[in-house]
Structure formats: C-alpha cells, structure tokens
C-alpha cells in the first residue's frame, strides 16, 4: 500500500514481559523516528471557520 515496512511492526508481548515491552517500544520508536512523519494515506481536511 506504499507504507514503509518498518512503519508497521508486529510483536507478541505477554503482560509479564515488561522488559520485552520496553525493548519493542524503544526499537519501534527508533525505527519510525528514522522514517519521519507518515505522508502516505494522510487526508488534509479543510478548516471550516
């Protein structure tokens, strides 16, 4: 669909795996920050006064 593969990630994290959760979030955030803001499939809605 034109979405960069890093922008969408899947992971299994159990509620007992706090350290894994932190690791996943850090990695995903880093990957997405590297990609910059998403420009694909973004709709600009005109402002109504």
């Amino acid at each position, binding site marked *: *669909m*034109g*979405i960069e593969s890093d922008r969408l990630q*899947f992971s299994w994290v159990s509620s007992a795996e706090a350290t894994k959760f932190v690791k996943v979030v850090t990695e995903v955030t880093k990957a997405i920050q590297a990609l910059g803001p998403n420009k694909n*499939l973004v*709709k600009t809605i005109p402002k109504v006064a």
Partner: protein
Amino acid sequence: MLSYIDKIKEISTGLLKEGRVEMIIGFRKGTVPMMNEPHFAKSPAEVENFVWDSNCGINLCNYLTNRREKIGILAKGCDSRNIVTHIIENKIKRDQLVIIGVPCKGMLDKRKISAMFEAEIGEVIEDETNITVKGDGFEKTLNKKEVLQQNCSVCIHRNPVIHDELVGDPVEEQTDVDRYTDVREIEALPPEEKTKYFEKLLQPCIRCYACRNACPLCYCPTCFTDESRPQWVAKGQDPTDVSTFHFLRAYHCAGRCTDCGACERSCPVGINMRVFTKKLEKDCLELFDWEAGLDPNVRPPLDTYRPSDPDEFIK
C-alpha cells in the same frame, strides 16, 4: 465455444421440463455489441433466448447469493470457483444447484477492442479463432487470443471445478503462463513510488461501486462504504478515501477472489483494480498454498489455523 449453445439449450429445457430447477441462469444477447446480459429462464420457451459466445464475462455466481429456490446455472471455470466459495460461505446450498459447466477459452476485452477503433463498433461476428469487427465504413478481423481480457489470458482454471452437466469436452488448461508479472513489478517499487502508482491508478475512480456490485464476493447486507455509524470511509473523491475503499475491498476478497475479472470488466473508467486482489491471491498461494474455490470441503486460510502458518513478521 460457439457450438455449446445447442447443448446448453437442450440441458436447460430438460431441467425445466422435468421440474428439477425453477430457473436457469445464463446469458442472452445484449443491446450493444460485446455485452451479453444475464438471462433468467423460468420456462422452456425462455430458454430460446440463451446465447453463448466470448462476451459472457459477467460472473453469474453473483445472482445466487441467498437464493432459496432450485437453480440451474451456467458456470465457466471462474464462475464455478465462485460457486464453491458461495457454498463454503453458506450463501447457497449445493443441493439447490444444478451446475451446467461450460469449458471456457477466455472472454473478449471489450474495452481493448473498442480502443482499437475510432468509430463506434456496430457489430462483432465471431468464429472459433477470430472475431470480425464491423462498423460504419470499416471491417477488421482480429485473432481472439490477442483481445482476451487480461485475467483470461493468464487463467489456469478454464474448466469448471464443480459441475453436474458439461456442455462440451474440457479445454486444455494453460500451463505456461506467468500469472503475477504485473504484481511483481509493483512489489519491487519503493514505498513512495508505490503510493504514486496507486494514486495514478485510482485517480479516475468515480466511486460508483460497479466493481463491488459486479463481484460475487461482495454480498454484505451493508457494505463498509455505505455505513454511516461509524463512517469507515468518506464518500468523496479525496485520494485517501478512494485508495482506502479499494484497499479494503481487496482485503475483504483475500483468499476468496478467483480473478474472474468482473470488477475490471464492469468499471466504467477502466481501472485495473485487479492488481490489488491479485497481490492477495499471490500471497495466499505463496504463504498458505491456497487457491480459492477449488474444493467445497476445504476451509479457506483465513478461517483456519495451522501451527505451520507463517509468522516471521511477528518480532
């Protein structure tokens, strides 16, 4: 293919006379060239209007959804696979149907043919290998193979996969075709190029939903595009909404689409939205070794779990 019609009429008349079915769904000649329309014969007299040639591209399975009566239906390879999908999805019962199988050599791409001529086409005459296109002041003979619908030219299931009667000998299946050349080309594009490609592809879309209405898979009582609470997708021409409609519709057809080409055929502006459904068809084949509508006794990949299902995408 042209010789099928006598057999079609013979079988249909028999079924109706014996009272085995209440109606037969087939084709009759349309009002413009290359556009046969569905015909519902309820008496032996109405059977006379049946025709069969290379303009029977509409997927007749679309007319079976939630029917209660006994029906005889003409089925090409793709139609028969959609009938199997309908049986799997409880949209019709097998014992309601008498499936009259029609081995198919492909249907004509009326848009491609029309584009070849500047003037309006008045008549198209067909024999086994060629068609002769006639109009005001011109006449040209074309080889059928060169003007087939794209999905027909790469079809690998021309013979009905399920049938009670067969109107002719099975035709030879194509084995040397590469079904996914176009999909691979798009897959190879970098993300921003893909976005541009899809925007350009869908730019002419007028959101008429002909593709949805022609599709036998699209039978939801209320389509997500028509929902207003919540409104999943806006109804305007914004490229984001247009893409959302096409992407979502394609995903709803994942593992079910038989690439019958009804969507592309019905599109008034000629969008090849089949690239989306074909991508999902390719994924289903590669990931789950699945081709839709081949066996009514096998559950499709999206409603079964196998421990061997691919999960490399989960980190």
